[in-house]
């Protein structure tokens, strides 16, 4: 066994000296004083007496499993939110705003978004070839099932609308018109749940940070999608003021949501404010809340295209960060072993380091 780790001590015979003995004695002192000696790379097995108790839980091993979604899912949340909102904007632009160019582009965003959504969802599956299993059954109590069906319906209607409207542009017969508008109506109706159901999806789980927010998450995710849809259409060159107004309303809600999250002090919300997940969520909140809100208010009084473009870019970036932040917060929340065991913060403080370390080890192990 010429393992580097073992061979070194065998090759080199050390002579004890004052320094080495003092070091050993200082270790003994530290052990007596603290009951625990720590050093880089050393995990003192079983010392001091490990404790699994009412106050310390089971060695701080997290009870809940972390979400196992891949990077596609937060991106899917973003794309789905924008696509669903876009279908509603298309219908409104067509029927109320008489802005047919905007309606046409919004339909394309919705259709392309639904196609991309399907792609992202399928590629996240552990067995992508089994995507159709999602459509084996309809299950109201599974938000994932409802979501998959909503996506299927939305994708179908959006594509049908885009196609029917293309046909209508060539041959404007009454039957074509009726079919196109009915389809557009169906696309908008299915776009409504599609633009915000992902909030229900993550809210109806055992992950504390998500579950605690189920009452606002769907609106939060929805409004995030609305303002990113407006932003995408603006970046495609549309200057219709309606987009600015709608995005402004959504940015207002996002600002309110951001303040609410900062104001509330529940333990469950901590991952949304602390650590990496906290900073991503906060950055997302700033970029889709106060910042674009201010820019869009300014744009109301100015014809500067630049201001709206800046607001749009900020909104899209904010929406993306918001989704990644929330998913990351879910991971951090699942690692909080105290919450599901209902262990108060103060009593748990003593075993914090062992707990954190444990979580680290387990993540490596389960990987």
């Amino acid at each position, binding site marked *: 066994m010429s393992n580097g780790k073992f061979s070194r001590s065998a090759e080199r015979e050390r002579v004890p000296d004052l320094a080495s003995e003092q070091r050993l004695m200082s270790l003994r002192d530290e052990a007596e004083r603290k009951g625990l000696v720590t050093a880089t790379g050393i*995990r003192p*097995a079983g010392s001091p*007496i*490990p*404790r*699994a*108790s*009412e106050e310390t*839980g089971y*060695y701080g*091993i*997290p*009870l809940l*499993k*972390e*979400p*196992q*979604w891949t990077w596609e899912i937060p991106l899917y949340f973003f794309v789905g939110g924008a696509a669903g909102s876009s279908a509603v904007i298309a219908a*409104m*632009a067509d029927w109320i705003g008489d*802005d047919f160019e905007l309606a046409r582009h919004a339909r394309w965003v919705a259709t392309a978004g639904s196609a991309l959504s399907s792609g992202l969802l399928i590629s996240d599956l*552990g*067995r992508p070839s089994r*995507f159709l*299993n*999602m459509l084996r*059954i309809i299950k109201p*109590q*599974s*938000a994932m*099932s409802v*979501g998959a069906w909503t996506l299927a319906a939305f994708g179908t209607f959006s594509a049908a609308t885009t196609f029917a409207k293309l046909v209508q542009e060539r041959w404007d017969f009454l039957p074509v018109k009726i079919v196109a508008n009915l389809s557009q109506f169906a696309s908008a109706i299915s776009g409504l749940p599609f*633009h*915000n159901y992902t*909030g229900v999806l*993550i809210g*109806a*789980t*055992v992950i504390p940070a998500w*579950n605690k927010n*189920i*009452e606002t*998450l*769907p*609106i939060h995710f*929805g409004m995030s999608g609305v303002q990113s849809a407006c932003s995408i259409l603006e970046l495609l060159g549309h200057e*219709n*003021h*309606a987009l*600015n107004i*709608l995005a402004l*309303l959504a940015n207002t*809600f996002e600002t309110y949501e951001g303040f609410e999250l900062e104001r509330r002090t529940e333990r469950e919300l901590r991952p949304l404010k602390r650590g990496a997940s906290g900073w991503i969520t906060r950055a997302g909140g700033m970029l889709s809340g106060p910042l674009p809100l201010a820019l869009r208010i300014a744009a109301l009084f100015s014809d500067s295209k630049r201001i709206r473009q800046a607001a749009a870019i900020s909104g899209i970036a904010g929406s993306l960060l918001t989704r990644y932040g929330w998913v990351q917060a879910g991971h951090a929340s699942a690692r909080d072993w105290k919450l599901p*065991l*209902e*262990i108060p913060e103060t009593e748990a403080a003593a075993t914090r380091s*062992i707990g954190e370390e444990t979580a680290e*080890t387990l993540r490596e*192990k*389960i990987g």
Partner: protein
Amino acid sequence: MSTAITTGFFTDSTLCIGCKACEVACKEWNDVSEDGLNWTGFSYDNTAVVGHSTWRHVKFVENETKPGLGGNAGDMVSWEFSSDVCKHCEVAGCLEACPTGAIVRTEFGSVFVQPDVCNGCSYCVVGCPFGVVQKNPKDGRAFKCTFCTDRQKAGLEPACAKACPTKSILFGPLDELRLKAQTRLDELHERGMTDANIYNPEHTNVGGIHAFFLIRGSEKAYNLPPNPEVPTKYLKKGWTSSAIGSAMLVAGAALAFLVGGRS
């Protein structure tokens, strides 16, 4: 057509000797993959958690000795062992969450993931209040204790229960097990082991578990949640919020185009 009766596990931690025969038996019978040959380094429990490749897990609940708990030597650790497993909830979070219908309730009342239907969406993972079911990243599907449905169909007891040398893991009709558990608990209380109690959360919407435990002291030391919840109970709030959000979008968009945007 046979009408099978609801069966369950009654795991009596006071009888467990931590031999891990159940873990080995489970892995062998079910051909479960290796789950990492690592030392946890903080206790004698080197399995640590149940997961996609660990369906039985013997917990080593170590603490200071105190009167009535632990051996003779005060400087030694008190040891409690408890073989953990999927709880096979009366109302199961994973089963509710599963969009494909891969997770089903079997004729034995247990919760079973059909491996040929699961598409690996991993939504069950965040639906389980006990952190049991997990996606195997290498395989792509979710796995957990099958309650040895195959063995039960052949009229046999699950592998873990069969291998248990101390009858700490009892298998049988759920009703009978509940009676046995109560009898055992009374017996222990009579003997003075007053901290013995049964963990079977019937007070939350989990509505009781088919694999329940007799433990000593607080359930928290065993990583068992005091108030596990099936999260689908929050769906109503969620969809209400979704409807409000949708109304906001429709109203907002209509307003925006009426006010700002007739071209």
